């Protein structure tokens, strides 16, 4: 235990601005500490670099390729041409460049993956914190509902929901979020119960703090780092889910995603035609993105979860 005396800071902190500035400096320092811990993990760094590259490509896609290349009617290539100088990854059944499609597909896959994760995390954290903190019959019901979502086969539920709600990007995001919030709820609830038992919550209650104050000032800040780590692990599963749904033909028909490329490939006999260039690029792209997120997530978990840190 380090119980050193507070180092005398000769700063006179009469003005509010000076104090805020120092508080910011402290926050920066604690961020720097986490960053140092993160940087020491090689897999985490590899994941981060990969992820950075993918995000740059996704954002830069409209600059790199002309959107007209995605149009079925304006396609210039032949039907399922193997890779060539003009089409480095070959073409699809309508003569579009697979490279252009895969690059463009990253935008939708990332967008859906991230949005669905954010929605799932919001639902999961809100329910996790409230059920852990308030408890009682509300906590019991919330827990049972999240259990129920956890044991349901998510793909089957997603398919059923999409069939009912119709195929669009918004419904895809909603459906993915709906089937993936329960894990976060569990995690957040467990952490909430741990924080809940700390004496500083008792102290806050004795000071007259209501539920809102306890949840926002004490529980959430202590839960968020873990949530962040679990979110990074949730993104790849959301991307996979989107790809699966799109591959099954349940994606938004008007947009290009990795899953929808694979769906068209199998619908148009790419497998029997041995058109590996049609199947491999979107498949590998999914694999790389999933891997990159996983690597970052595991590293973040090791930084924020003291128990994991202790074991290392």
């Amino acid at each position: 235990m380090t119980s050193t005396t507070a180092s005398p800071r000769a700063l006179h902190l009469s003005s509010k601005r000076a104090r805020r500035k120092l508080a910011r400096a402290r926050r920066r320092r604690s961020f720097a500490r986490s960053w140092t811990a993160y940087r020491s993990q090689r897999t985490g760094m590899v994941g981060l670099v990969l992820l950075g590259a993918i995000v740059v490509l996704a954002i830069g896609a409209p600059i790199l390729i002309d959107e007209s290349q995605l149009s079925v009617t304006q396609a210039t290539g032949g039907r399922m041409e193997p890779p060539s100088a003009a089409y480095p990854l070959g073409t699809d059944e309508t003569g579009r460049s697979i490279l252009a499609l895969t690059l463009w597909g990253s935008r939708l896959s990332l967008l859906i993956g991230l949005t669905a994760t954010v929605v799932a995390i919001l639902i999961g954290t809100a329910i996790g914190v409230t059920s852990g903190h308030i408890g009682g019959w509300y906590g019991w019901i919330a827990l049972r509902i999240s259990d129920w979502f956890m044991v349901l086969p998510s793909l089957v539920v997603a398919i059923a929901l999409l069939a009912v709600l119709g195929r669009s990007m918004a419904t895809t995001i909603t459906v993915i979020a709906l089937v993936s919030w329960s894990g976060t709820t569990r995690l957040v609830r467990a952490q909430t119960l741990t924080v809940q038992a700390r004496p500083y919550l008792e102290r806050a209650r004795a000071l007259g703090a209501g539920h809102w104050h306890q949840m926002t000032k004490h529980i959430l800040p202590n839960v968020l780092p873990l949530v962040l780590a679990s979110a990074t692990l949730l993104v790849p599963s959301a991307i996979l889910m989107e790809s699966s749904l799109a591959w099954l033909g349940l994606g938004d028909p008007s947009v290009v995603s990795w899953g929808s490329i694979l769906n068209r490939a199998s619908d148009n006999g790419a497998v029997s035609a041995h058109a590996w260039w049609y199947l491999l690029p979107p498949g590998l792209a999914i694999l790389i993105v999933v891997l990159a997120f996983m690597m970052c997530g595991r590293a973040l978990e090791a930084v924020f979860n003291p128990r994991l840190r202790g074991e290392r």
Partner: protein
Amino acid sequence: MTLLEFRDLHVTYTGSRGRLPAVRGVDLTVDAGETLGIAGESGCGKSTLAMAVLRLLPKSAEVSGRILLDGEDLLAMGWGRLRAVRWTGASIVFQGAMHSLNAVQRIGRQVAEPLLVHERTTPAKAARRAEELLERVGLPPSRARSYPHELSGGQRQRVMIAMALACDPGLIIADEATTALDVMVQAQVLQLISGLVAEKGVGLVMISHDLSVLSAVCDRAAVMYAGRIVEQGPAREVFANARHPYSAALGAAFPAIGDLAARKRPGGLAGDPPDPSRLPRGCAFAPRCAVAVERCVDESPELLPVPTGGSAADPVRTSACFVAQEGEPVVAQR
């Protein structure tokens, strides 16, 4: 007859914060049949001293000096001999008995275990002896069939003592053995320990932060601060008539009831115990000392005989305080 002797013992831990000296030159003896109390607060090195006796310190600890048990150097001993010495020569009762007992083994088996390991008796004999030991520490022999969680804190502490007694050690070290216990249970355990010491004539080293308890149980007391012994003498004297300002403050932290001088006047020290990685140059206590003189800041005082009451230095009272060595009072007058 000298049972245990520390000669110029130094223990230094090396950790992420650099080298931390925990024990800085301790000379101490315990005679057979004697009870010695070691007082001090967390981080003063008193537990390190206890662990050093049975070589239970972590690998990162650097130990120098000598620890003699019955004239044999514990630090130079081979592992086989050391194993024999742990239990039969000396044994330790730690605080926090819940963590020292195996939760999934019956009490009787745990008490009998050292007998099986060290004395190679038959299991039936060992079990019978375990029941005897439990009776000696005031537990019904039927308790041998219980699991640790079925016992109260005081009962678990008794089990720990029974385990320490199992192989008839010549020396028992009790490290804060009663700290976590309630007053009444503490009294029960202290009574038990004192009774056993008187009956068997073993040596007892009792380590505690509570000088008043030590003064009631022990013959002699040594007070430690920042890895050194700062005062030594008859326990009652050290408590009632301290010759080091730190022992005086430590004694005042636990006032005797009925002592009108202590009523509504909680004694305490300004400041905090020193950080072992940044010890002051002179006397380690000087920054918190109310009677410190110029010399204390630059020179580190040695443990020397000090005058008590009369003019001549009393050979049994030693203090590492320049002020006390001059025969001046160590408590600032109010």
